[in-house]
């Protein structure tokens, strides 16, 4: 009996997952109860098992506990995972939206005008390779607000892929289509919205998708620096608490949220994609 490729791939994924978790679980030493330890073991720090990498079962238990009540708030250092994620998403989306509002119009301008392209290119080339976190001290000094500084860092890291892809997409619009707009006497704005935007949309969306991925990578680091709230802060806080179960759990959550963000943009991209 032949099953579809998808089905077989899913089976293989599942097998890999079970094998991986099994090996991980088996290689984690079982914690002895304190009563079973000899006096010597206790003296030598045998009770120090907490600091070891926890087994998957512990993480699953933790995940179940956290996810069954994701929005509790017991003071500044004890908030549910849902609240932390919401803070991070808020920062990412506000910085990202600001970046899109600026990058896409400027990208359009650069793509349509060779003059603007040549004039702005040196700035883009110098600013683009700067690690977004390098802006952090300057942002903190100028903005004087850690929350806004984190948003600024997201803004500055997500602006470049969108800007460059928009410019590239707009500049690459087939001349035939521009001629169609011209022979139909479309004005500048109607040409931009009815011909150039749909023609460049797949390339622009690629830039937006790259940007959102980078923004999600950067927010974790930014929140570790800024502190207070957010998934990045949560990871660092749990590290300071030596709660490795929570650290691993939040790492997985970061992965899942990143994947979801990417999937959303992949769907939008499919929507604007066209075949020549």
């Amino acid at each position, binding site marked *: 009996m032949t099953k579809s490729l998808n089905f077989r791939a899913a089976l293989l994924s599942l097998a890999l997952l079970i094998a991986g978790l099994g090996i991980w679980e088996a290689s984690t030493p079982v914690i002895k109860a304190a009563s079973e330890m000899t006096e010597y073991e206790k003296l030598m720090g045998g009770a120090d098992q907490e600091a070891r990498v926890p087994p998957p079962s512990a993480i699953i238990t933790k995940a179940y506990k956290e996810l069954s009540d994701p929005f509790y708030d017991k003071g500044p250092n004890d908030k549910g995972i849902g609240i932390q994620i919401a803070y991070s998403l808020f920062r990412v989306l506000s910085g990202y939206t600001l970046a899109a509002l600026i990058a896409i119009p400027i990208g359009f301008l650069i793509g349509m005008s060779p003059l603007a392209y040549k004039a702005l290119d040196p700035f883009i080339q110098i600013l683009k390779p700067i690690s977004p976190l390098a802006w952090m001290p300057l942002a903190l000094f100028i903005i004087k607000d850690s929350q806004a500084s984190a948003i600024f860092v997201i803004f500055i890291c997500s602006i470049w892929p969108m800007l460059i892809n928009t410019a590239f997409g707009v500049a690459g619009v087939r001349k035939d289509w521009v*001629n169609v707009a011209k022979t139909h006497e479309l004005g500048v704005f109607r040409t931009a919205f009815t011909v150039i935007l*749909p023609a460049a949309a797949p390339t622009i969306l690629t830039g937006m998708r790259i940007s959102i991925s980078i923004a999600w990578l950067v927010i974790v680091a930014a929140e570790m620096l800024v502190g207070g709230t957010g998934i990045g802060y949560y990871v660092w806080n749990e590290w300071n608490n030596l709660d490795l179960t929570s650290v691993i759990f939040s790492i997985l959550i970061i992965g899942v949220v990143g994947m979801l963000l990417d999937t959303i943009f992949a769907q939008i991209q499919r929507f604007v994609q066209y075949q*020549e």
Partner: protein
Amino acid sequence: MEKPFLEIDGLSKVYPSPEGGDPLVVFENVNFDINKGEFVCIIGHSGCGKSTIMNVLAGLDTATHGAVTMDNTEVAGPSLDRGVVFQNYSLLPWLSALKNVTFGVAARYPDWSRKQVLDHSYKYLEMVGLSGGAEHRKPSQLSGGMRQRVSIARAFAIQPKLLLLDEPFGALDALTRGTIQDELIRIWSGSDQTVFMITHDVDEAILLADRILLMTNGPYARVAESVVIDIPRPRERATIIHNDGYYKIRNHLVDFLARRSKDMAGKEDIVPGQRIEPLEVNPAKDGGVISEETPKKTPQLVPVAS
């Protein structure tokens, strides 16, 4: 005398040489007229500037010298009065066939209601044989022939004063080409549309045109002859070959393309202020010109800017 509908007067296109040598003159002193409702084809070898002339007429390119006047107005820039069908269809791939047509109709008639735009678009899509669901497909889901039909429907639907066709059937296989030629001639017969069309296909030109303009080879290309095709209409591909004049015209055209376009190539002495009209010939009546022996005139060597 009444002025012709479309007047092309002393048109030339010169590209400056990149390294200070002689500039490249693609064509020079091109003069011809087109009357209202006429179907005119232009034939010439690649590089003689046919497409440039077409782009100048469309307003997408500018000539170095000369002027184009349509309906007593000088042509400057693109306009909905001149519809264009490009060889590569130029449909917008993210729109369905229907939307591609409504795109044009809505641009032409901005104050029409949605319903009017739709009805008008459907009318022209049906005219080219695209209906029954196919109009909702994207161009990528249509065959080359279907795409060119949509493109023709779009161009006719905006009801331009002048329709420009740039080798519209160049990318199609021979069978499809024949079918769409028949459709084009049928749609054209039912309208008073003026058409100017570039083609490489002699038979296609005879089938469709009232007049065929022949261009000499570039550089310094010019419109040398205007061949009148007075085979009575309606014409059909199957029966036109039995017309007495058909092969006379055909031989004349083929002879021009094979020999005279080369022999006549080169710079002409232009008397300033004098308009050189293309020589009007009617091969069906007078048998046309067939160069039997080697022409006496040796081809002139023309400096070409490299």
